[in-house]
């Protein structure tokens, strides 16, 4: 394992070969906005919220998908990046149907909190208002496609952590949507163990526990920390 040194926002930082820019920045208290990245599960670069500028590269790079290199110079918070992230957020909000005032996750939602952080005070692109389904077939959980941002956190967690691989994405473009097993109602899935991990990692109110009223759905991801510490330090504790 070789150690690499790079500069992020003017500060010298080090990481080991294979680390991503996002992770090194995170460990050095530089928080890059993100939606699809979640510590403990593999990255896919689905949301592009973590875009950064890398000196010498003409295109912006998703920091969760960019491995560090010796001498790299990275900027995570420039005027350009702030404007791109804001627009990205507005596109996400306009793409689905987000009515925070009646959402189970109102006040506890990563998408909503990030929109506020990015300074989105209104959405400049026209709302699409697509017609999407709500799947309430599962005995314990619900899936509201209106609020899904296709980050695939649930897909990766169910596959890599629970080992059940219930979820997949189907369709392309505006038809992109989450499917359980081969497209059955979630409640009919034979693979689902009803563990609820997908619900806890979902950044929005798309996956929720049945019986939650407006604003009542709070997610608990401590199980992922437990797994990460166990994996990396061989200590089965929730706090190191």
């Amino acid at each position, binding site marked *: 394992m070789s150690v690499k040194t790079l500069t992020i926002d003017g500060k010298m930082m080090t990481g080991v070969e294979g680390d991503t820019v996002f992770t090194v920045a995170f460990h050095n208290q530089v928080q890059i906005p993100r939606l699809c990245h979640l510590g403990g599960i593999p990255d896919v670069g689905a949301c592009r919220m973590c875009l950064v500028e890398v000196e010498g590269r003409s295109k912006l790079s998703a920091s969760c998908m960019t491995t560090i290199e010796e001498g790299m110079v990275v900027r995570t918070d420039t005027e350009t990046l702030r404007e791109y992230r804001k627009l990205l957020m507005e596109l996400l909000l306009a793409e689905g149907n987000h009515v925070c*005032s009646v959402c189970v996750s*109102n006040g506890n939602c990563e998408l909503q909190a990030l*929109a506020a952080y990015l300074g*989105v005070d*209104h*959405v*400049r692109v*026209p709302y699409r208002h697509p017609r*999407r389904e709500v799947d309430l077939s599962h005995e314990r959980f619900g899936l509201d496609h209106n609020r899904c941002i296709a980050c695939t956190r649930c897909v990766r967690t169910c596959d890599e952590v629970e080992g059940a691989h219930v979820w997949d994405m189907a369709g392309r473009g505006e038809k992109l949507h989450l499917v359980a097993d081969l497209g059955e109602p979630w409640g009919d899935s034979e693979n689902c163990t009803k563990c609820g991990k997908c619900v806890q990692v979902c950044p929005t109110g798309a996956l929720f526990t049945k019986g939650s009223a407006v604003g009542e759905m709070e997610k608990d991801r401590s199980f992922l920390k437990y797994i990460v510490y166990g994996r990396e330090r061989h200590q089965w504790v929730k706090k190191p």
Partner: protein
Amino acid sequence: MSAKVKLATVWLGGCSGCHMSFLDLDERLIELAAKVELCLSPLVDTKFKDFPDVDVTLVEGAVANVEHVEMLHTIRARSKLVIAFGDCAVSGNITAMRNTFTVDEVMNRAYRETVAVVKGVPVGDDLVPKLLAKVKPLHELVTIDHYLQGCPPSADRIWELVTALLDGRAPKLERRFG
């Protein structure tokens, strides 16, 4: 400032919750009354037949029917500052939830598929303004000067915005969305 600031508040496609929150200003309303002339509002009787020229208009609700469209253009033409007052004005919010359906589907659900006092969909002719095919947030039609988030915005947020405008300073509002 010698002359009082002219304020109007308008209720388009919303539930009046934002206006109720405005009333939650409670005793601060007295302080406000000393500084502004409330020219037009669903909360007060008015001497104006038509929409008057004002300094600030708070617009609650989304644009849902043809009357709202006309009203909003009048408001923009006659107000120095137009404020999107609450989530329906800012994003369409609850009012825009019907946008995933056609107007016919919405009318059928409201008047045919549910228990109705009068059988069938009321026609209304010119009495009831026609619904737009899609509900829109204000900024899709006119330029908006400030956005006040919240369903409804709290009285404290309303107060901060209104007093900031009166004092001619930038409002210090905690960032929020929805």
